[in-house]
């Protein structure tokens, strides 16, 4: 009996492992920046290039950093959600306009709505490299001490908001 059950058991274990492997998303590369201080930056505003924003300006509040670009198709998927979230006023959303052109970016915000408290410009992607950005859109949750607590890769969905992002924000704000 064991002669037949053993290969079957090995096969089942193999199937389970392969099943787990196939359902994992290879694009979700865990970020080493979680629970580390958010990289420092000083960037110009998108709307008013004379103004600059520094990462330390946001110390003392929980905030969301959303990396977006007008050339990014997936950004359009998550955008209505961000607009809704901004309206609730739960958390300030800062937009990092990544490797974009100013005119098209402004036009894009005019067309699809502007959820951002401030949009800042990372035209050559240098700050993006510091934050480990590799696939726009990406969203970071940064706590009152300026520590990155969560990174969401790809478009934010209702599910990811309800399951992870919003509870985390409430916890950090509390």
């Amino acid at each position, binding site marked *: 009996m064991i002669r037949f059950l053993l290969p079957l058991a090995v096969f089942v274990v193999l199937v389970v492992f392969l099943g787990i492997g196939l359902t994992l998303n290879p694009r979700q*590369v865990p970020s*080493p*920046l979680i629970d580390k201080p958010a990289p420092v930056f000083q960037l110009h505003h998108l709307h008013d290039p004379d103004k600059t924003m520094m990462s330390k300006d946001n110390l003392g509040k929980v905030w969301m950093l959303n990396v977006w670009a007008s050339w990014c*198709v997936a950004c359009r998927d998550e955008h209505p959600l961000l607009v809704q979230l901004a309206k609730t006023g739960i958390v300030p959303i800062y937009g990092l306009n990544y490797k974009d052109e100013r005119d098209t970016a402004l036009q894009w915000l005019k067309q699809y709505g502007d959820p951002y408290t401030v949009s800042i410009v990372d035209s050559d992607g240098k700050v993006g*490299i510091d934050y*480990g950005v*590799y*696939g726009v859109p990406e969203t970071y949750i940064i706590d009152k001490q300026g520590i990155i607590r969560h990174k969401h890769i790809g478009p934010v969905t209702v599910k990811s908001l309800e399951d992870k992002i919003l509870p985390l924000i409430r916890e950090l704000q509390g």
Partner: protein
Amino acid sequence: MYKFKAINTFALRQCVDQFFKSIKQLTIIFYVTLLPLTSFANEALPVAEDPVLEKRLVELSENLRCLVCQNESLAGSRADFAIDLRREIREQMKANKSNEEIIDFLVARYGDFVLYNPPFKATTVLLWFGPLILFIGATTALIVYLRRRRTQIDDIPLSESQRLKAEALIEKINKE
């Protein structure tokens, strides 16, 4: 209506990008094939500003993964991400950073996943020793199995009729 237009311009932009990339490639092929001909007249210009640095860049980035096209190295990928990171590495090399410093810089931002050679850590012990453990396990199982089979064979004596049959066969062979 507007949305449709926007998607179209994006696709168009990608096509245009691809087109220019192809043109660039053709230009390179053109130069590569024609350079030997012109070398009689002029000395060939160096491909990059600093060939030593470019060589070092290629050697380093061949062992780094492009996170966008995960089966391509940073050296070989034409994704924007790889182009940006090559530029970053080039700048750091110009600033006299060592290869280790540059790798640390990248790992701090993108994690061990950028490395094609995973480092030896608590989480990668199974990765490094898994094959060895499997090999030892399989060899042990094979040895145990073979030994058990040998004793099994020894343990089965021939019955009287089988012995007579065998003797008859041997005799027959010997006569021939």
